[in-house]
């Protein structure tokens, strides 16, 4: 399969009075064309930071210190500010977390779409623009009248659809969706994810879905990457992750999801996610790991291939 997006050795650090904090620590993966890849982990695991780093949108005190990101063979770090600005949305589009806050509250939906076209040098006649807006809204399951509404006139699900409409308006090759449905109730979540899946099929683009709901991941993505303390500690096809998770943290993430099958089976992950500036020695997960041995406390496990197409960073994987 050919990779549409390649991330190699990506590192993001945040400057802190007590020394640099590694928020993304040497992450590599390839996203295949048309693929749905999930990135899961707890708050602070670096998954959202990585999404932003791919788009080179890390703000000081954070900075990308190493690594390459290429889209369809084009090295992004070679692009200047203007080139990168053009690539955002047109090449890689983002559906941000919390749609309620990412739309401009004082602009009609139509005007926000007009902005996107204008900013990327797409000039349309009025009639063509109106037709394109109506088509985009229909694609995401909204009525054409929504174009003239303000964000506060839309429900949460409608706002998230409007965000998807903006994300796809320039037919990107990759969509990064950062917890796109975490603020929605389950019925609406399902509709929005169905819309996203259909839009992706129609465009033939790839999707990176960032989130922590393992149920959503199980039902939506083809492959899943699990992040812990800034590292990609497991990456495997979703079926493998569910039936045979290699990293104990992946197992813990799955068990922390409340099931509807049997009561009293919900388990937390013991302890707390580590502070990135005070990472424990050895494997960062060892203080919370049921399998930890002396080796885990001393030696940081490398990410290695544990089976074809399956990577994990655990001494026991």
């Amino acid at each position, binding site marked *: 399969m050919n990779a549409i997006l390649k991330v190699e050795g990506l590192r993001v650090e945040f400057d802190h009075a007590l020394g640099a904090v590694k928020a993304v620590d040497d992450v590599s993966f390839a996203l295949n064309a048309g693929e749905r890849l999930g990135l899961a982990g707890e*708050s602070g695991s670096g998954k959202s930071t990585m999404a932003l780093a791919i788009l080179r949108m890390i703000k000081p005190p954070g900075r990308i210190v190493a690594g390459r990101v290429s889209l369809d063979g084009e090295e992004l770090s070679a692009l200047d500010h203007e080139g990168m600005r053009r690539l955002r949305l047109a090449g890689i589009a983002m559906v941000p977390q919390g749609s309620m806050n990412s739309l401009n509250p004082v602009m009609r939906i139509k005007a926000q779409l007009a902005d996107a076209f204008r900013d990327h040098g797409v000039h349309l006649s009025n009639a063509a623009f109106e037709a394109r807006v109506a088509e985009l809204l229909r694609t995401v399951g909204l009525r054409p009248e929504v174009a003239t509404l303000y964000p506060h006139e839309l429900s949460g*699900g409608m706002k998230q659809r409007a965000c998807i409409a903006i994300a796809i308006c320039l037919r990107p090759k990759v969509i990064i969706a950062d917890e796109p449905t975490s603020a929605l109730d389950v019925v609406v*979540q*399902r509709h929005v994810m169905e819309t996203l899946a259909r839009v992706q099929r129609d465009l033939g683009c790839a999707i990176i879905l960032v989130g*922590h709901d393992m149920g959503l991941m199980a039902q*939506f993505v083809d492959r899943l990457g699990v992040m812990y303390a800034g590292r990609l500690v497991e990456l495997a096809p979703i079926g493998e992750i569910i039936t045979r998770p290699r990293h104990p943290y992946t197992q813990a993430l799955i068990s922390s*999801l409340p099931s*509807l099958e049997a009561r009293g089976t919900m388990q937390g992950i013991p302890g*707390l996610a580590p502070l990135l500036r005070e990472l424990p020695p050895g494997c960062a997960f060892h203080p919370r790991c049921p399998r930890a041995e002396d080796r885990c406390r001393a030696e940081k496990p490398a990410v290695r291939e544990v089976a074809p197409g399956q990577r994990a960073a655990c001494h026991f994987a």
Partner: protein
Amino acid sequence: MSAPLLETRHVGKRYGAMTALSDLSMTIDTTRPAITAVVGESGSGKTTLARIILGLTPPSEGQVLYRGHDMAGLSGRQKREFRREVQAVFQDPYEVYNPFYRVDHVLTTPVKNFGLASSRAEARTLIEGALRAVGLRPEEILGRFPHQLSGGQRQRIMVARAVLMKPKLIVADEPVSMVDASLRATILGSLRKLTDEMGISIIYITHDLATAYQVSDNILVMYRACVAEAGEVERVVKHPQHPYTQLLISSIPKVSTTRDWLEDEGEQKAAAAPSAIGCRFVERCPVAMAKCATTLPPLYRTEPARAAACFQYEASPELQAGALDEVLVKAHEVV
């Protein structure tokens, strides 16, 4: 028999033309401690119900009785007693703390205000006991500032604060929705312990049916200001009767290699204006009948521990007003 702790009689709440809660009657009898989950989407009326039970919002219709007395006319002493017996835990474990005070402040204040201890040492013992009851180690908590603690720890301190008052009832409104998934189990586990070991009843307000299933004994499913289905949690979740409950349960993505969650959307029946007179769910209902559009279905008692507001169950007896608690079980009661 003494009057139950709380009773709502035909309570409703309107904001202008919008009905937030419609005609809900239930009794909260704390001699049978249990966790009752109130589940629904945003705007279903679950938080309105919580606020009415907590006495924070007066109902626009009906009345709330506290130990047999109308809440609207409680004496100062009764109000104080109500404030001790009925405790709240809210959604946001960040906003409730004053960042300039050590977290001890939220624990010592109620001890002082309610005269719970006669000496400093006694207060300290009380506070440490409450912290331990929710699975926290006092030495790791006391003396810290809010920013030094995690969201999960802060939320458990809020539960400890409620426990301190030796309440009969805790109303917890989305207590884990802002906490990381890995910590939810611990917080919900400590709520479960309060019911099982201390006999405290809990009303758990949530949009998350799966956590409700994990910790609750009973469940009330709300849809657009009305109770759609109520009953023992295992029955409701495993064999939902109301079409809305069925939709809700089938919408939860499951950790499984069977991928049947994403379907082709087809026609989506979401977000139509709710029917003013008929069943609130009629526009989205796959089994709607003609009368559903014109008549609001009452709750039918379909099983000893279950009621559903749907005309499919017309043959079952109607649940008498105020009898909602009859279908709710106490903790660990086998149906």
